[in-house]
């Protein structure tokens, strides 16, 4: 009995020792580690693949963790186990950068790579529609300002058909497939549509209101935008909310609604005319530049005209290029490795 016990203890110790041994191997690495936004992920992974193929360095590892999750990992500190780059579909927040600096990540360069539009689209078997931001808000908000004797109060959203909101809109049931609350697209939608509108109209006291109706008109369709696209081709009365790149990939099946009279297309989004658009960024940890030699080669490739330019490859995937002047600014920042300050935010 003793013998078998000893042999078991021995095995367990051996495994534990092996694990710890692996863990303590620390050296400069050739492989860049990237985390962050699922919106930037398709573009960044395209660049990593290209980088792995045409340079002698291994392909960077890229994980899609969401913007907030990525920045948290990125700001955990400096050193072997922490990521070198974090992608984000919004700007880093001042509080996040302060946490970074507290943890010793003091030299961060911000790189703006382009824009992404959020489209409100339907099956192409329908007539195209033109919505205002306010109409869109009234269709998805949980509570809306009342009419008639309920004037000045917030009431549960009574609109069942688009024509209830405005007689000029089609007489179709309001049915919207959209992202769940964990998604960056949902965050952006809440900020760019819900908050923007509710701050402007009476009834919300000037505060941003972001509650989305839960009476069945808005349907959480999961993180996978492909599912929304699929549902729209089957349920032709419904609308969907998703990223511009999925519209580009399904040109014959879907048409996007014009928002405030602006069509959802590359130039309007790039110029900032299309109202539901956001900028995409990534953040580079300059303190890793020496320990991870390929870091800036990768960044240079990412900001090259071949990738983010007007005719760049990322444009084919749905990235909306920055205007030329801004692209130059981005490249200048990269060349100077300009450090981001809390005061800049």
């Amino acid at each position, binding site marked *: 009995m003793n013998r078998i016990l000893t042999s078991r203890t021995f095995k367990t110790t051996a495994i534990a020792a092996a694990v710890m041994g692996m863990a303590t191997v620390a050296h400069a690495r050739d492989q860049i580690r990237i985390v962050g936004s699922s919106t930037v992920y398709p573009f960044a992974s395209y660049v990593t693949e290209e980088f792995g193929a045409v340079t002698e360095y291994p392909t960077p*590892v890229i994980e899609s963790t969401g913007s907030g999750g990525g920045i948290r990992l990125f700001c955990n500190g400096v050193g072997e186990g922490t990521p070198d780059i974090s992608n984000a579909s919004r700007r880093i927040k001042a509080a996040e950068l302060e946490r970074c600096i507290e943890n010793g990540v003091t030299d961060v360069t911000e790189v703006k790579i382009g824009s992404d539009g959020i489209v409100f689209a339907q099956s192409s078997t329908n007539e195209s529609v033109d919505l205002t931001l306010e109409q869109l808000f009234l269709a998805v908000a949980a509570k809306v300002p009342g009419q008639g004797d309920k004037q000045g109060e917030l009431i549960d959203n009574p609109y069942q058909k688009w024509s209830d909101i405005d007689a000029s809109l089609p007489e179709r049931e309001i049915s919207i497939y959209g992202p769940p609350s964990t998604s960056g697209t949902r965050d952006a939608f809440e900020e760019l549509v819900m908050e923007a509108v509710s701050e402007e109209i009476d009834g919300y006291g000037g505060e941003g209101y972001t509650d989305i109706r839960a009476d069945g008109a808005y349907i959480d369709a999961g993180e996978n935008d492909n599912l929304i696209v699929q549902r729209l081709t089957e349920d032709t009365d419904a609308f969907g909310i998703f990223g511009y790149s999925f519209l580009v990939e399904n040109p014959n099946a879907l048409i996007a609604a014009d928002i405030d009279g602006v069509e959802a297309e590359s130039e309007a989004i790039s110029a900032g005319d299309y109202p539901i658009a956001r900028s995409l960024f990534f953040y580079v940890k300059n303190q890793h530049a020496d320990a991870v030699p390929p870091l800036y080669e990768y960044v240079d490739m990412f900001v090259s005209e071949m990738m983010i330019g007007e005719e760049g490859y990322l444009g084919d995937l749905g990235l909306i290029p920055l205007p030329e002047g801004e692209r130059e600014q981005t490249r200048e920042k990269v060349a100077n490795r300009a450090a981001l300050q809390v005061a800049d935010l």
Partner: protein
Amino acid sequence: MSQTFDEISAQLRRRHRRSARLKWVSMGALGLAGLFLLWFFSDMLGKGLPAFQQAQIQVEIDYNEDAARMGRAALDRDLSRLVSRTFERMIPVQMRENPELLGSKETRWVLADSEVDQYLKGHRHKLNDAQRALVDELEAEGRVELRFNTTFFTTGDSKMPEASGILSAAVGTIMTMLVTLAIAFPIGVMTAVYLEEFAPDNRFTQAIEININNLAAIPSILFGLLGLAIFINFFGVPRSSPLVGGMTLALMTLPVIIIATRTALRSVPDAIRHAAFGVGCSRWQVVRDHVLPLAMPGIMTGSIIGLAQAMGETAPLIIVGMVAFIPDVSASLTEAATVLPAQVFTWAGEPEKAFVEKTAGGILVLLAILIFLNATAVILRKKFERRW
């Protein structure tokens, strides 16, 4: 007995009718399950089989000076839009490595763009009229055709559907499973041997037993959180590596192996143990030479089934970072890797239509491996099973 013959025969008929009804209902249930399975398989085969074919195109490559900077310049202008970018981007690299190529020409079959592939397969595509006409013309000349898709089995993931394959995920799966097996099998079998052959039956061992049975039913994502907290944050095992994935899945597989091993040990009749003790064997000798060998087929079967279950798992691996984009095939335990179900998950989220067939193709490969593993388990059981 006060019942008349008529009453009894009526009761008998009723009972027979009931059992007939039960038979039909259960056959109906089986038929329904079979139908679902058939539907699933035919859907997967219909969507996935095209993934094993890929369009190839014959082009003339002109290694000129422009091509050394921009690969596209080596090809005819119209044709270059139809050729995969994975090929074009390698031209400058090749010319750098072999300077004597400059000025030479070569005609070769290369990978076509996924849009050409989708057009040839009759799926939705984004080619314009001129490009379609060109592809039709090339097809008539025999310069573009669908061939067996070796790329799918020899490369890793790619953003370009035509060049993406499952090899890196398959290698990742193999390494993860090796780690899982190396940890879960010895620990699981040893634990079961101790509990079954050595441990006294008291409150403490009963509590352990209940806990092990409970662990087998815990949602797998919790093991992922445990793996993140212990292996990555505490021991500092590299994130996304097959090592950490394998260790996490080992936690999940352990209870399955322990339970299977205990059942197998229990099915070895006590007469064998008594006989061995009777000729003076020590407990160690009894276990090593008699009980374990006889229980081995059952242990193997249980372990293979546990392993197959772990192989299809993605939830805990998301937490430890194994759902990542991995184009390189690497056979290191500490470098980032992904596994087959995670690869399927990644492809399912890609916007390009051509990834639909890759997703289904990946599922087919995963299914084939799982069927193979489960069949091995059944064969082992059939071949070595002993009845007492």
